[in-house]
């Protein structure tokens, strides 16, 4: 019986591997397409594609991460409050599922922090106090889980940069964080082609803008 189930298990994996395009290849091509995305429509198509891969691969956190990221970017881009809320809900749903797969992945907590920042944008007066704490908590946790990950440092720096000086934000306060992030970006090597590897250029741009003339 045991051997039988083993054979079956092998057969099933074999079948899946054969019938489905390879996971890495699918992710690679979805990422490449996302890289070419021009319009909001393209982004939506990309997000939906990652969502489908996530649905088909319940053990992989990467597709959920990317679909969450794209929905979050859409939430930042759109101006309509109802639509914003919709994208935030989509992003949150995807990250919730991914965090169920693993809660030890620095990138996922970084993304959760980014979603909280989008929530602040929804209604700064009412959400500001609560969600800025939540976002910075996520970045703190992401840094703890992987001190070499530049993205939580960069996003935290960005949020400090966008905080008014009276609240302890501004260029001077953001500078050390962005410098640290830039240093981490220089040495960062993604685990493979399909692992997160974004933010380097933006970080350098922001850093340049922050540096005193």
């Amino acid at each position, binding site marked *: 019986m045991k051997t039988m189930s083993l054979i079956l298990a092998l057969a099933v994996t074999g079948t899946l591997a054969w019938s489905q395009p390879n996971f890495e290849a699918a992710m690679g091509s979805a990422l490449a397409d996302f890289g070419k995305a021009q319009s909001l429509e393209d982004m939506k198509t990309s997000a939906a594609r990652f969502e489908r891969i996530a649905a088909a691969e319940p053990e992989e956190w990467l597709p959920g991460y990317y679909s969450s990221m794209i929905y979050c970017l859409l939430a930042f881009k759109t101006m309509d409050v109802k639509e914003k809320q919709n994208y935030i809900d989509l992003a949150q749903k995807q990250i919730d599922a991914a965090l169920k797969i693993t*809660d030890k992945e620095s990138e996922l907590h970084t993304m959760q922090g980014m979603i909280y920042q989008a929530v602040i944008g929804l209604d700064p007066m009412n959400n500001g106090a*609560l969600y800025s704490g939540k976002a910075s908590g996520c970045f703190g946790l992401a840094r703890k889980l992987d001190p070499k990950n530049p993205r939580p440092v960069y996003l935290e720096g960005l949020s400090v940069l966008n905080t008014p000086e009276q609240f302890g934000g501004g260029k001077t306060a953001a500078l050390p964080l962005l410098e640290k992030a830039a240093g981490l970006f220089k040495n960062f090597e993604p685990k493979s082609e399909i692992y997160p590897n974004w933010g380097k250029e933006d970080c350098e741009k922001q850093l340049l803008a922050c540096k005193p003339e």
Partner: protein
Amino acid sequence: MKKLLYLLIISAQINLSAQNIIKGRVEDHEGIPLTGANVYIQGSYEGTISDTAGFFVLDYKAGDSDILVVSYIGFETYKEKLAQNQDQIFRKIILHENARLEEVVITAGMFEAGEKSRAVLLNPIEIATTASSNGDVFGALSFFPGVQKQGESGEIIVRGGDASESKTYMDGMLVSSPYSSTMPDLPARGRFSPFMFNGVMFSTGGYSAEYGQALSSVLELKTPGLFDESLTSVGIMNVGASLGHTERNSRSAYSTEINYNNLYPYFLMAKHELDWIKVPQSLGANFYYRVKTGKTGFLKTDIVYNNSSSKLDYSNFESTINKIGLKNQNLFIKSNYSQELGDNWMIKAGIAGNVDSDKKELDLDKLSENLFTLHSRFGIAGFINKSLTFKTGGEVYMLSYKFKYSDFENNESYPMEVQDLLYSGYLEGDIKMTKNIALRVGGRAEHTTYTSESKVSPRVSMAYKTRDKSQFSFAWGKYYQQAQPEYLKYTSDLTFENAEHFILNYQIVSENRVFRAETYYKTYNNLITYDPGVYEEFENISNTGDGYAKGIDLFWKDSETFKNMNYWISYSFVDSKRKYKNYPYAVTPEFVARHNLSLVLKYWIETIQTQACLTYNYTSGRPYNNPNLPDYMSDKTKSIHDLSGNLSYITNIFGYFTVVHLSVSNIFGLDKIYSYRYSSVPDDQGIYHASPIKSMMQRSIILGVFISIK
């Protein structure tokens, strides 16, 4: 087994199968096209999204058991098993809205606040920053409709029920001494800081079968899961200081805090009539720990300790005692565990212990009260299907109360005690009859060993959604409560006091506005009655009292109309009479004010990063018994007005996020007379003399600086 192999072989042929095409349109139940719905074959990466007119064309490799999936946020996912040889028919796919904001929810008597609930009525930060509450949870609750704060005790009175009829829970576990211990006529505060919680459920009646032993109201304080962020916090106030640290990890978190309060500077600044021998001071320490276990398990443990002392000279007041000293120690420990069992079951277990030791010195006599309670509960929730969920569980509640009065003059002491074990079990089902009608039916059985009594209390509530954002709710239930230990210590020959609630509620909720109107009728039976004793405090204690309370509560909250401003207004009217305690006949009790009106206004002043809050509260006169008048409880106090305000200035100190907080209660220093205390014997002319029970502090000022260090 053969079948499975066959399936495997078939599925291995997927690649060899032909391409297939499905065309269609995705729309909601009103025929409005849904743009961006994800359309795909289950388990496959390939798919498409619907266009702006809802149309889609899905090109896929046909298999044997293909399932078409159409998903869209906020809507139920559509699934359809496709036949092997697909015809090219055009599919009209109608998605049904997920029950969410538009869901029909039972709301009679219920106020819920939290981060996740969309129809947020109040969140904990709003509670903490409500002026005149000074960060006291119960103080802030007095701005809810149906709630009246008893100025002289600090306790809350809900809909004509006395303070002991309200119970406080933390994550489902009973807090048997929720108020701090204070001197007679000085207001108590809640023991817990509102910042400990991320949600509040407050029910002013008609609550679920999960809760028992409360005749009037249930307050459920919900603590957060894993804390948000690692930080160190420092607070310095004119009344004390605190230091705390929170550490967050991916699967666990802890938070710890010590605080010391001394009211000396406070009394120095405020006008008052108190002659302290020892100004109140307290030392507290808290520890909270959370850990995730396995995939879905979660354990929360909270420990809250507090130690306080004070001594007061009472010789100026109409009192037989000159000096009162008070020492109190309180320890609350609770642990909760919850875990999902599969997709449809959830178990919860908890245990909580509360030790409260109160030692009073009454001149040379001594009075000690020790209360120990242990509460344990276990519950299961099951989701049978979309329209039926149920909860069931059991609780054991142990109470040990020890009382001792030591008479110095006669060198004698009078110890008394109560040992009670209370068992209870509940079962409750939530049924969605239609999209617009929800029904909750439940019951609760309770048995107590001390008075050896058993009771079953049925509960029914329902909600009917009239339009998108408005609904009616109705609740009915019977509620039983064991008599207070102060009576039980004299006799076990008592039965449960009971109340029956009828509540009708209407509410209309939009994203940023809430309007609620609620009317209720409550009857009371078996209330405790006694005769004032000669040797003992109470004599002939029995359950021969009864009464009623009826009224209407209105609530309006708006955070939309004015920019950067949010305000809410509550009004309550209550008409209540009862025969209880030593009342000769049914009268309106001394704690009931017929009209209560309150206004809370918060304004964010952008230019100076300051949140300002103003509160106004009006309480109509309360009855009191004037022995110079022929009728019992026939005199009435003057009404009370209170205007309070606070400012929270947000800034940074050395780059750390800092809040500077100033709060002033009773800005105009108006007199607040809550009641009168009469001398027990008349003077030569046969007149009884009175001294007012009033607010001991005319105006109070609190100033604090709170810094978060990351």
